């Protein structure tokens, strides 16, 4: 139970930091709004497949920015302080949970803005909301781990993007397949197997991150 308490405390610290230094949260929010607006100016109100593709590309870039900001804003001194204070696994889990929640919020906002600006060609909006929440959290898990790696490599945010894009492609393929189901008028039965596969993928990423983070921590 102390593990969960530690993780919750660290999570609360993250949330508190967000409230105090509001530039991170509002920064990403501004980024979301501006990019969606630019997309609207460029594309108008696109049709299904383009809408789907644009939405997931947006999620990708939002995730890179949001996670980079949250992980890389801590200075080395502060990281050393945390190293002496808490268990690396707790630290990593708290960061991952925080990033997942942040991404969830951002996805909801961007979905709203997408539907507002770019039209709403969804036949099953409920399914799409569920898919986008799940997808956003999955993407944020992979990028959290990559941000941990990039944080060790001279705090380079660009490196995180470079490492991240190949790794995220299989996940994106699954997500696009899932969300395409939400567009079609006929209900297709393949959804559950893809959801299960993505869930297993996420579990694998979480386990790997938790096992491998202590090696990154020793610095």
């Amino acid at each position, binding site marked *: 139970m102390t593990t969960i308490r530690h993780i919750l405390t660290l999570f609360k610290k993250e949330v508190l930091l967000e409230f105090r230094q509001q530039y991170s949260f509002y920064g990403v929010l501004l980024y979301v709004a501006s990019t969606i607006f630019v997309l609207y100016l460029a594309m108008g109100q696109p049709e299904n497949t383009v809408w789907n593709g644009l939405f997931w590309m947006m999620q990708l870039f939002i995730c890179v920015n949001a996670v980079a900001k949250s992980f890389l804003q801590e200075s080395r001194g502060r990281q050393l302080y945390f190293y002496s204070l808490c268990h690396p696994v707790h630290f990593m889990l708290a960061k991952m949970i925080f990033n997942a929640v942040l991404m969830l919020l951002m996805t909801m906002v961007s979905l709203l803005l997408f539907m507002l600006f770019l039209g709403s060609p969804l036949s099953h909006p409920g399914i799409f909301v569920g898919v986008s929440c799940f997808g956003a959290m999955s993407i944020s898990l992979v990028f959290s781990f990559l941000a941990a790696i990039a944080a060790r*490599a*001279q705090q380079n945010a660009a490196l995180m993007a470079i490492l991240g894009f*190949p*790794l995220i492609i*299989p996940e994106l*393929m699954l997500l696009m*397949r899932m969300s395409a189901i939400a567009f079609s008028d006929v209900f297709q039965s393949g959804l559950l197997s893809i959801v299960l596969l993505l869930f297993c993928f996420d579990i694998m990423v979480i386990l*790997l991150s938790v096992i*491998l983070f202590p090696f990154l921590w*020793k610095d």
Partner: protein
Amino acid sequence: MLRKNWWKILSFLFLLYTFTAGFLGNVPAKPILNETIRNLYFHVAMWFGMMIFFIVSLVYSLKYLRHNNSVHDIYAVEFARTGIVFGSLGLLTGSVWARWAWGAFWSNDPKQIGAAVALLIYLAYFVLRNSLTDRDKSARISAVYNVFAFAMLFPTIWIIPRMVESLHPGGMGNPALDSNDIDKRMRVIFWFGAIPGWTLLGLWITNLRTRIQLLSLNQETNV
């Protein structure tokens, strides 16, 4: 053992056997594939070789994380490098095969895309290594990434292409090396000629590279 020459000569002999028997031997007459099934000895053997080298690279990365021995790190990098070379050749031979069997070099088949993504993931491994200037840090962080990248291979190349519709053998659940597709003669040449031959060749290349790296490492530490 690795400094001896016998296994290098053996590799040459295996490959000689593979090439001769591969091109001159009889193959079962399959519809659509016809003679292109000979590519089995090259394309599939390349991918097998790649998996073997990535597994060895993973083992050395894990050893490095446990013991912090630079030699293990050098082995891990060089095996990953050879794995990428074999993987690229596998992709190339696959495209050539696709040109004759499916009509185009690249048809956005899930397996092709998965293979390309796997190569990109491992290329990112090298980008990561080069971006870190401190040698120990670079070794440790790239070892961590190597484990992650290897775990990513499985969904990308094996699981997802098998689940979706694909032109490549192995889509929609049926296994790729089906016993109905290749006959006994081909199986002998494949398992006893192609795989050992290409694997030993890759081992030879990696061995040479690691020896060079070890020499330069010794030179640096002794100066």
